[in-house]
């Protein structure tokens, strides 16, 4: 029973850590399926994390904060769209620029607004997403086996966690069951064909980049208003890149994105519980190894030794209407 509870706790923190990865991964999925590479996920998350925490601290309402975070992320998406779609610039370089822009601006503005060394004040009360207790969770708490599972693992997360998990089937449905999704995927594979069909390539790509911005905004807001209570400098801490890794790991498919981010979330959870691994496999595993594992696994997948990851064909290529 004790082992079981430990497992539940471990999975619980897996879910918590996987949520921002999942949201950012789905964000990248929309963008890259439409042929726009986005290595600026990290920067968008960071900007959203700051603005949602800052606005939540100033207004006292976490929902206004969430909107501000999404707006900030959308603004960076707009820059990425203008650079890579309108002006047909290099999408990778634009992503790098966005990451630095967010890294610098968040600290600069945080210092100007709050004067606390690049952080926001701690969020309390309504300025934070509190855990949601699902119906009957209290009542079922003491039922053996199912009780802890329901109470600890399924109930008691912030509303954003449930939104993130609901976004997976929604993304699948949009991409594979709607006309918009078909066109979006087509624009990432063969934009000329979409153009010939009389559909705007530019419009579709901007739509994809905007969806990416919204999802990154939620991911960032989750970091600073749900996972933690306030913004600290560089709090995205490479999560945008892990999400990118998960996207490749999932081979640009929504359900696989869920599995990949849960796996990487589990690595993150294990990193904080070295005792669990030690009792599980009987030897000590270095934290650094766990931290590097998502990246190593992604490189192996990319290398095509275990099932090749093939990106959307027109990814990274600006579309020129007439040559």
């Amino acid at each position: 029973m004790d082992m079981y509870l430990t497992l539940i706790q471990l999975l619980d923190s897996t879910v918590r850590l996987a949520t921002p990865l999942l949201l950012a991964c789905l964000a990248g999925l929309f963008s890259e399926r439409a042929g726009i590479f986005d290595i600026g996920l990290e920067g968008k998350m960071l900007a959203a994390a700051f603005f949602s925490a800052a606005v939540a601290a100033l207004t006292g309402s976490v929902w206004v904060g969430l909107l501000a975070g999404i707006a900030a992320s959308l603004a960076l998406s707009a820059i990425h769209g203008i650079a890579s779609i309108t002006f047909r610039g290099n999408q990778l370089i634009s992503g790098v620029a966005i990451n630095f822009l967010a890294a610098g601006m968040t600290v600069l503005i945080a210092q100007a607004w709050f004067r606390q060394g690049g952080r926001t004040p701690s969020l309390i009360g309504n300025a934070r997403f509190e855990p949601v207790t699902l119906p009957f969770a209290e009542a079922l708490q003491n039922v053996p086996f199912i009780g802890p599972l329901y109470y600890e693992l399924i109930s008691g997360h912030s509303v954003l966690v449930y939104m993130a998990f609901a976004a997976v089937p929604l993304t699948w449905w949009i991409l594979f069951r709607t006309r918009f999704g078909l066109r979006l995927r087509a624009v990432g594979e063969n934009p000329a064909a979409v153009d010939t069909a009389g559909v705007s390539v530019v419009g579709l790509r901007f739509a994809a980049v905007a969806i990416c911005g919204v999802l990154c905004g939620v991911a960032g807001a989750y970091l600073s208003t749900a996972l933690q209570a306030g913004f600290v400098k560089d709090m995205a801490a490479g999560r945008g890149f892990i999400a990118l890794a998960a996207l490749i790991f999932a081979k640009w498919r929504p359900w696989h994105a869920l599995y990949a981010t849960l796996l990487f979330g589990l690595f993150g959870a294990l990193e904080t519980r070295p005792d669990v691994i030690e009792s599980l496999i009987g030897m000590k595993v270095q934290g650094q190894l766990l931290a590097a594992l998502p990246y190593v696994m992604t490189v192996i997948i990319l290398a095509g030794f275990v099932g090749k990851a093939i990106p959307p064909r027109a990814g990274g290529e600006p579309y020129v209407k007439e040559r």
Partner: protein
Amino acid sequence: MDVMPKWAEVILVPLISLLLAAVLSALVILAIGEDPVAAVKLMVNGALGSSYGWGYTLYYATNFMFTGLAVAVAFHARLFNIGGEGQAALGGLGVALACLYIPWPHWSLALIGATVAAGLFGAAWAAIPGWLQARRGSHIVITTIMFNFIAASLLNYVLVNMLRPQGSMDPATARFPEAVNLPTLHDLLAPIGISFSKAAPANVSLLVAVAACVLIWLLIWRTRLGYEIRSYGHSESAARYAGMPPTRIIMITMLISGGLAGMMAINNVMGEAERLVLNSVEGAGFIGIAVALMGRSHPFGVFIAAILFGFLYQGGAELALWTTIPRDLIVVIQALVILFTGALDNMVRMPLERVFLSLRRAPKPERKEV
């Protein structure tokens, strides 16, 4: 036929991009309630107003020359090596091992040995993404990003568990022996009667960096290999048709690129810190991207851009010291430079091309050539 004359391409476009970045940076300073003119004055004074300031500016510039060249060389083969950060970290490991475990008799020999070690380690770290790109088609941008993180974990592991001296809590190596301490610009300039600040960290590796700029220029524009690299960058299919094997070009380019990024370590690890600490690269690998873009991937451009960024770095530190503007302002400026000289290049170029086209169309019969 080029739309724009060469001078516009080489000077005007980067200058306008830079100007746009500068104007936006000034607006950012205004927006956070500070005076941009005073800020620039403070930066110029702090970075260029004394030999102490120059010493720091040139120290940073040395780092950026190496990482900027690393990115630039890869750009010529149309490879985007974003992994300078990791390669420089590994280069630091190479320098540390060379300095700690080989009893060098004199700093000059140690410098040669450490440069080779740094280059080899950096090149090795770039070799795997290069090979994966060449043989397995894995996108080099993603693999080099991943290798940055893997390098950070590896360095963390090595420093904490292997190289840390007994009894020390600090995740860093022991201090390098006295014999491998590199002479600073003060030591180099004193014999010829120029007094240079003693406290500034600029050292003899600056000369190595300048030599690297010259050598890379020779390599890219004066050798067969450089021609192959550039051909491959312009058109892979043409290069392949001309009998240049892509695998070999990718591998050699990435080895050179990684080696250059690794060599940065002779400046920051051997020249300044004199031991290897965690996160010794401090983002210089990424600044290399901005430097290479601004310098248009030309070694001379990289040299100038590196000094400019050295100035920004030292000036930014002064700003943080004397005003409430945090040092992160430099990160914003860096982002804007990358944005305008890199991603939004066409935004500047398209209107300029239109201007030059309309100038050319204007009737000028006397200048008509056959």
